[in-house]
């Protein structure tokens, strides 16, 4: 079964980034990394679902 467009995009991104970072992985590990990156992508989508003001600066917890 062919992967959906989102999965294909993640696979392409991971492969390109690995190449850029000069990392060569065994096939099984590459698949695991793709799964983990898909999970990170879901986390990003959850984050996108909670919009915050455009001008918000990154946190500085040192000022807690």
């Amino acid at each position, binding site marked *: 079964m062919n992967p959906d467009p989102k999965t294909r995009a993640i696979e392409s*991104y*991971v492969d390109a*980034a*690995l190449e850029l*970072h*000069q*990392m060569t*992985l065994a096939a099984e*590990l590459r698949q*695991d*990394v793709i*799964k*983990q*990156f898909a*999970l*990170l992508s879901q*986390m*990003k989508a*959850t*984050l996108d*679902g*909670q919009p*915050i*003001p455009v001008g*918000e*600066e*990154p*946190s*500085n*917890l*040192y000022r*807690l």
Partner: protein
Amino acid sequence: MNPLSMNSTFPFTAAECVDAFTSGACSAVEIAAATLARIEKANPALNAFIEITAPRMRREAESVDHARQLKQPLGPLAAVPFAVKNLFDVEGITTLAGAKLYEPYPPARRDADLIQKLNRAGGLLAGTLNMDAYAYGFTTENTHYGATHNPRDATRSAGGSSGGTGAAVAAGLVPIGLASDTNGSIRVPSSLCGVFGLKPTYGRLSRTGSQMFVSSLDHLGPLATTTEDLALAYDALQGSDPLDPACALRPTEPTRSMLNQGINGLRIARLTGYFDEHAGPEALWASQIAAQTLGAFSEVELPGVAAARSAAYLITASESGALYQDRLRTHIDQFEPLSRDRLIAGSLIPAAWYQQALRYRRWYLAQVMRLFRDVDVLIAPATPITAPLLGQPSFKLGNREFATRPNMGLLTQPISFIGLPVAVAPLWPEGNLPIGVQIIAPPWREDLCLRVARVLEQAGLASSRTPRG
């Protein structure tokens, strides 16, 4: 005293050790011998200790005994045994951080700042403790050093990543243990092993001489069998450190003397919404019974908690991936198989994702601080479930299934994400397995966390049920 004839009258908690030693009922050398005998007997079944520093502990005990003979001032932890997660530097020992990767590294040249502080207070170092490799995990299942077994049920996980610390304290091997908490690594083992734990405010305690994992989220703190011991340890650990750029320049704010002030006048609320939705029956019971015992009848929801957890996940993946990226390229075969895929994936995160997570953290902190105008302390479960079986791949909440290793921190991540101080108090639902509640306060109010934990302990609801002798 023959340490092998230990019985229930032998000093056991940190406070008991201090009392017995200062009154002359026993020597530090005797306490050290009893501790080492306990460890020798129990550790093979637990795999909590990676290294037992027996010669050093005996030397430290002799030194403390000598100080007493000379009538020199004795520290607040005089003759109290303690042990540390093996990401703390211990002079003469390689700091492993649970990772085979670090085995070839040279031994540490000096102790971590917090170990120095406990030693100065009279503490006796018993050894270093097992953990998930790099502190990346919630179960202390370590391919190279073996899993740590939960003292309450050896077939179950002790939690992680500070599982060795949780198990050592819960089994009564040491009354105080040091650990780190990036996303829940003090609170998850405290919950699953059934001991008290404190994750102080981000920046409160020095991290000098500890192996970094996620700098902007890493905290250090103590686990203990009683709230009094927890406060004793925490007070000894305080003190600013200019060598740690995240350590705040604040004066020490002792808590032990305020431990019994009670909760009159405190506005305590139970967290619902996300926290109830990700709580199994025992976790929900713990949150509700704790709130009821405290007379906390108001309930509140934090805004955007799921996104906070996601942002914490992204920051963790990105910073840890960046930390290890070069070595992943050159030494991939040395990496823990259970987490190397996550480290690699994290190293590929676009900077814009990471920045968005940091921006969200600022916004979320502002929302939560607004909530603290009307509330002093928040209550929530520490883990979604009680201790899972070792090797258990997933757990269910209702009809939803969650992978175990990354999701035991579902309820802790949204809190440490913004650096709030949290104490964990262990409760005991029906059955033999404990589960913890998080007691959450505004920044720098560790005293409130400890006072509320103390009330739950005095009410008989929270206890470590640690075996004596």
